[in-house]
């Protein structure tokens, strides 16, 4: 944990009138992220997949591989374009929704975004060269131009996640007289929450993109298309996704323990743990009752929470009552999101295990139609887990935008009339989502 001296409460850097539209601002931010992040998964994972297939083509000369690689790279370019515009919206929203936050802290965390910008630049450049260079570049050179895409996709997400990690584990500045002073950007960037978030998100990219693409080909398989093309596509995407899914559980455990150390109140919200408890039990399902301060109708497993969070069945776990009520996140939202993610994550890991056991013992895909039906369902479920994970992290951090330093309500804009903007944004995103789905269906039908 970074030592941070916050002598006085933070005061406003800009200052202005009242800030009436906090709710809308939060909704707009959440909505925009929920649109951007699924696209990002493809930016992270798809390049590795089409490059892998192109590598197979270079080794074997088999045209099936090339057809797949060309196809996937075209889809990736389109999704990348949509990722770029939705990412740009997020950048605008930093200023449009959270000017106080930016004015106070841009100097502290901005550097990560500067590096992010560089990565996206490189990604955009090589994406264009790769997709438009199929015809005229030599096969080897063409393959090589794919490598920077993979690296910059990772670097880009790394830098954004560094910022999110910093919001959860702020450091690299001091607060004196209510002002943010002495920014130390590099210290801010390499915070303690970053490591697990980066790995968890990176794997999530493979899980989400892998299962969604595999789902498309599984559907074709179920409809009876079992040629080499579909078979190859299935084996490649499932290998990526099914390898990532079990590892994701392990990294998730790491994430939970890291949260236990740094943000005990957030962990208490994950679990609906009202009072600091020794040998705390883990409750599956149920609803947290604010009046009674306990989870009702859940299945309780004694000592499991202490075991999971601290790897010791009798460890003491901090409860929500360690901070005053106004400093606690909304428990049910966070808890429901967390349990959804963990439930889906466990299911996906099992699916991955089935795939690998079959492949390892029999060198073939599972035969059961249920396996393919499960894969079709796995894509949307992975997406749900992804969004649920971000709700866990972001809503779990509330009421803080910068953990224990700046409240979200301090950060928001004074501009009025965000309702109009919110409605407009919802409509635009609905149009965008239907446009993208429509296009993906077109592309999928073409085989």
């Amino acid at each position, binding site marked *: 944990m970074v030592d941070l001296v916050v002598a006085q409460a933070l005061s*406003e*850097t*800009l*200052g*202005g*009138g009242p*800030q009436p539209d906090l709710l809308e601002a939060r909704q707009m931010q959440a909505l925009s992220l929920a649109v951007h992040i699924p696209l990002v998964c493809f930016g992270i994972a798809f390049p590795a997949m089409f490059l892998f297939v192109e590598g197979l083509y270079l080794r074997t000369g088999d045209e099936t591989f090339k057809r797949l690689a060309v196809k996937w790279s075209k889809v990736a*370019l*389109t999704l990348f*374009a*949509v990722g*770029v*515009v939705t*990412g*740009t*919206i997020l*950048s*605008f*929203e930093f*200023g*449009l929704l959270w*000017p*106080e936050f*930016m*004015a106070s802290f*841009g*100097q*502290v965390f*901005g550097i990560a*975004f*500067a*590096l992010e*910008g*560089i990565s*996206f*630049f*490189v990604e*955009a*450049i090589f*994406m*264009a*060269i790769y997709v*438009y*260079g199929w015809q*005229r*570049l030599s096969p080897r050179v063409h393959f090589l131009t794919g490598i920077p895409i993979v690296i910059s996709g990772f670097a880009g997400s790394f830098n954004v996640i560094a910022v999110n990690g910093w919001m959860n584990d702020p450091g690299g500045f001091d607060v004196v007289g209510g002002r943010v002073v*002495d*920014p130390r*950007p590099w210290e801010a960037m390499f915070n303690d929450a970053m490591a697990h978030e980066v790995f968890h998100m990176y794997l999530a990219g493979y899980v989400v993109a892998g299962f969604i693409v595999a789902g498309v080909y599984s559907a074709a398989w179920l409809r009876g298309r079992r040629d080499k093309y579909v078979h190859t596509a299935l084996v490649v995407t499932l290998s990526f996704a099914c390898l990532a899914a079990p590892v994701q559980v392990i990294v998730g455990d790491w994430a939970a323990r890291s949260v236990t150390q740094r943000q005990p109140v957030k962990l208490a919200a994950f679990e609906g743990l009202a009072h600091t408890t020794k040998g705390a039990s883990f409750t599956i399902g149920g609803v947290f009752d604010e009046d009674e301060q306990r989870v009702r109708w859940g299945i309780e497993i004694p000592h499991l929470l202490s075991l999971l969070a601290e790897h010791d069945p009798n460890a003491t776990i901090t409860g929500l009552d360690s901070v005053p009520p106004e400093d606690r996140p909304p428990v049910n939202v966070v808890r429901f999101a967390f349990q959804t993610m963990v439930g889906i994550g466990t299911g996906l890991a099992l699916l991955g295990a089935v795939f690998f056991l079959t492949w390892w013992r029999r060198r073939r895909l599972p035969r059961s139609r249920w396996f393919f039906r499960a894969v079709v369902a796995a894509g949307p479920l992975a997406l749900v887990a992804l969004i649920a994970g971000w709700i866990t992290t972001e809503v779990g951090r509330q009421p803080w935008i910068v953990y224990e330093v700046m409240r979200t309500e301090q950060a928001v*804009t*004074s*501009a009025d009339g965000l309702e109009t*903007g919110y409605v407009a944004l919802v409509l*635009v995103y609905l149009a965008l989502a239907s*446009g*993208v789905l*429509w*296009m993906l269906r*077109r*592309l999928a039908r073409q085989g």
Partner: protein
Amino acid sequence: MLPEICLALAMVGITAYAVLGSADFGAGFWDLTAGGARRGGRVRGMVQHAMSPVWEANHVWLIFVLVVVWTAFPVAFGSIFSTLSIPLFLAALGIIFRGAAFALRGQAGTIREARVLGALFASSSVLIPFCLGAAIGGIASGRVPVGNATGDVWSSWLNPTSVLIGVLGVVTGAHLAAVFLAADSRRAGQEDLVHAFRTRALGSGVLAGALALAGLLVVRSDARALFDGLTSGAGLACVLVSGAAGVGTLVLVARGRHEPARFVAAVSVAAIVAGWAFAQRPYLLPPELTLDEAAAPDATLAAVLAGLGIGAVILVPSLWLLYRLVLRGVLDQRFEPLDQRFTTLDKDERR
């Protein structure tokens, strides 16, 4: 010194976006005005042909500017975005439409779908430069005070200077696009299109020049400080360079020397961006916030420079590679006249 360097970087980003980005918007403008499916087919084909490989890379310059400003000049960033929230939000919506429609249009199955997407693409190509130009006008004419949305939400961008710069943004973009597309058509060996775009380049260039001159009068009455900055010292020098380069572009285009015309046109834009910076010196947000007051502490600025410096080592060769491949035609797709569905028109119309 550090604040000036960071400002210069932001200015480089703005210039690059104003040249490359607005040329993309201008291309959308010519797409919008190309006429019906048959008549406009060849123009649309050329627009698609020229833009496909580069538009994403061009777009990143905008991100670059945002990032540099919010890191190096955070207070200015917060003030600008909260006061100018309406035009910037509109620009953001336009950006979604434009990118998405451009990306999706190739998949349109019927002419109706294509018309909707095409119109969306093209009309947002007008909306974005206008809104961004209007925002710049608000800053330059001193209508963005320091504070969380403390400026007037409407008059900060609906005022004579803003409207002028917004309209200039649209027209200049159209002009740049026509200059570039004429050169691209020459490379693709489409002489009739060279001619079509040359006419467009000359027309829009003359219009842009006339607007700029008339605009000086508008600025004189609306934003006297800005006018004085543009008509004295370094500001004046930049304005003159920009004007000369503008005229130079027209001469080159008229003579059919399209490749050099590209660069001279870019110089014209770069000079006017620099002129704007000089004209409002020493302020970042006139008339209160100076550059030095606005700048983040040196540790941050140094980190920005170090980060971008390291980045440039990777970025500059990559950009160089991209533009070299583009200019050599390695990334060219086959040129085809396209209807609004972006599918090839009938064979007999190809020649």
